[in-house]
Structures are given as C-alpha cells and as structure tokens.
C-alpha cells in the first residue's frame, strides 16, 4: 500500500477510518487523506490484474469504505461521508496482505473475467456450492483467490470465490449462500 498522504501531515494525528459511515475512496494516492485507505485506481487495477476484469466495467460505479477495509461499489454518487446501513454491493476486503473479493461481487462482475478462473465440472461445482473443499490438482494457475465457475444455460457463469492452495480448492461460499445442488 502506498503512503502518499500529505494532507494529513500538517494537522497532527491523521484521520482514521470511521466504521459508522461510508467514505468515498480517493481517486488516486495524491488525494488520499485517511492512511491505508485504498484508492479507486488501486481497486480497479486489482480486479484487472487478478481476474482480467476490464477497467471500464466500473465506469458507472463509485467506491466506498465502511468498516476496516470493506469496500463497496455503488451505481450512483451521493454525499461523502454518508451514515447509512448499506450503499450498493460489498465487493472486496482490502487493508490486508491478500485482498479478498466477495461472492456477490464475483457473481456480478466476473462474467468477463479472463484470469484465475477455475471452470468446474458438475460434480465439482456442486461440491463448491455446498461450501466443501476439494482436491483439484489439475489447476496450474496462480495460488490465492480464484473465481470458481461452471457452464450453465450455454455460457460460463461465476459461482463464487475459491482459495487455491497446495493442490486444494477451498470454497469461501458464505454459510447463508450454501446449497446442496447435487
């Protein structure tokens, strides 16, 4: 994470993230005021580098932080900060070494993903949707967070977020979204 926050230096303690409100992300590092807050540029680049999601995917969305490192995408713009319960879709957990995308973001925004997409067969897909981990030695791509996908109704569709480590695909489908689809 870059640390290019000059605005806060002159005013004593730098401002901190406030978990009770949404703050719009700074566009670039030059505009960063709250230390450690990711920038819009970094978020767009992360999706492009990790999954090949085209940057223009996000042209209609603003990005916000509420809670430590929880990044949300919103389809319009409103005043910042804004103290509300929800603002668009939570897409990402940042402020940690390996940023973690959300299941719902991957389903919505990774249809055109080209990198780190693991296409599962029927049995593997059902295992993943149940929330179970599985051996998957055939994957020879990157370790880390991947998009688990399968073919349905004539096209490849993202199912959710997998964590690939040591030949194993771990399912991160949240408890409330797991289904037995065998």
């Amino acid at each position, binding site marked *: 994470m870059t640390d290019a926050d000059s605005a806060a230096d002159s005013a004593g303690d730098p401002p901190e993230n406030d978990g009770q409100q949404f703050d719009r992300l700074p566009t670039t590092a030059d505009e960063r005021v709250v230390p450690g807050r990711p920038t819009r540029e970094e978020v767009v680049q992360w999706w492009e580098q990790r999954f090949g999601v085209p940057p223009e995917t996000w042209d*209609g*969305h603003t990005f916000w932080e509420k809670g430590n490192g929880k990044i949300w*995408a*919103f*389809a*319009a*713009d*409103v*005043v*910042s900060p*804004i*103290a*509300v*319960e*929800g*603002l*668009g*879709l*939570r897409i990402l957990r940042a402020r940690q070494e390996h940023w973690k995308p*959300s299941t*719902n973001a991957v*389903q*919505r925004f990774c249809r055109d993903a080209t990198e780190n997409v693991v296409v599962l067969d029927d049995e593997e897909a059902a295992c993943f*949707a149940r929330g179970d981990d599985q051996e998957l030695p055939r994957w020879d791509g990157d370790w880390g967070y991947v998009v688990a996908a399968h073919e*349905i*109704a*004539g*096209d490849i*569709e993202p*199912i959710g977020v997998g964590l690939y480590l040591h030949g194993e695909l771990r399912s991160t489908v949240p408890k*409330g*979204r797991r*289904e*037995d*689809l065998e």
Partner: protein
Amino acid sequence: MQRLERYASLVDDFDAFRAACERPLPSVVRVNTLKASIERAREALDAEGVAYEATDWHPGVLRLDERGPGTSWPYFHGWLHGQEEVSALPALALDPQPGEVVWDAAAAPGSKTTQLADLMEDEGVLVGNDNNLGRLSALRHNAERLGITNLVVTNQDARNFSFKPFGDRTDDAKRIEAFDKALVDAPCSCEGTIRKNPDALDRWSMTHVESVAGIQKGILRRAIQATKPGGTVVYSTCTFAPEENEAVLDHVLDEGDCEMREWDAPEGFETDPGVTEWDGETYDPSVELAHRVYPHRNDTGGFFCAKLEVTA
C-alpha cells in the same frame, strides 16, 4: 377465516373467495434480469428439470410445480427470487426509470425493492428503508444475492424520514432532498396472506387494524411530502380492510397535496375497483381508481394497490 366474513358484501362470488383463501398458494419466482435474461433463466430451469409455468400476465414471473425455489442453480446464481405473484404489482404501478431517485419506505425483506432495482436497470438511486434492523439484514442479503448496486439501505422511522444523511440543506452538489417516486408497501393486518400463513388472522382485532391504519397514514403522508411535485407515489397493502386501504387514501387526498391516478393492471390480471362506502363511512370517489385483488380472481394472495400523483 371467519374474520373475512365481514367482506362478504364487497366481494362478488364470496363462496369462491372463501374457497380460494383455503387453498395453499403456488410457489412463485421472479426472474432477476440484472443477472440473467428471462430466456436464460428458463433454459437453466428446463435443464435441471424444474417444472414451471409462466403467468399469463408476465413472462418473468414463474409458477413452480413444486414448492421452494431455493435449491436450484439459477436460484444460487441470483437469477431468481421468490416473490408472491400479486406482490409484483406495486413496482409495475410505480414504473421507476433508470436514473431516478426512488424511495421504498418499508422495504424489508426486499422482494419489491429488488424488483424496483431491476426495473431501474440498477441505475439511479434506490433508497430502501425499514425501521426494523433485523429485517434490514434480510433486505441486504437479498439485494446482494441479486447483484444490486444502486440500493442505499437506511434504518429510519418512515413517518419521520430525514434526508439529513443525504446532505439535505447543504450546498453539496450530490445532496438528495426529494424523491422522484416512492413506494409505500405498508405494514398491515396481512389478511390477504391467509393462503401463505393460515394463522394470519389469529391475532386480528379491530384495535390492531386501527393502530396500523394510523401508521399507514403517517408513512403515506411522509412519502407524499418527500416526493417532488409531479412525482408518483404508490400505496399498497396485502389486506382487504377498507380501514387500511381506501380510508388511508381518503385521508391523504383530504390533505390536498396529491390526486389519484388511473393505472391499468397488466393484461390478463383481474382486479376490482376501490370501494367508496364502508361501515357507514364514505370515501373520496376517486379511490375507485385503486385496485383490489381478491384471491379467487387470479389464484393469488389478496392485495390492494393505488397510484397517486403528487400535486404540490
């Protein structure tokens, strides 16, 4: 069921009404076109052998042969959402457009809210409010599962809804101080859900009807105040009681800042007009433009839906 006898004078063919109220409701899903086209969702259901029948009046509202949409791939992908058939009406009456600023005053758990987002093509600002924090988490869960990104979730008493969080009375160019359209799908005595919840009437009392009618008037009044002149407000309930329907409309019409507007129910969906006399009371004649939905007409739950235009 006996509670419903009080509506015998309002309903043609009351025996058919009563018989329909005693049948369970079919399981119905709506296709979420933000994530899949109607054709693709239906193709996926076909491939899984899930039998369904499209409703006469909407190709994206599907009656399933068996109960429960939860365990299928198209549901897992957020292509489908379980929604009672008749509850698809108010969003169609409101007819929100992409880019508008729209309020859902009592939004949780969100079947109508998510339908509004779909009609808005996920563009513009949709404010989903509910005073119950527990129910708000269901709203958020449903909206996220369906991939909606234009929803702002608020937790206020709708009767006193404040734009303060939205920069009201500041000079911020991004402030919001009024809505283009509002849906008041009001808390109610839920008589019309008897087919889904056979015990829906167990706790029915006139005192409850009167107290909930007070809340309904308060929410509808605030929705009319908070909507721009020329904007639309839709009022709906899932109950038959005129005290909670036409009487609530009569109350806001009497205050003079809105008028009833005609709205045609979808072709193939049969409704009855609002009533202008009930239990010794008479209501503004324009409430006839509202729609009463009786369970035997379309084999659905019971419902009430009215469209208003804000005039001042």
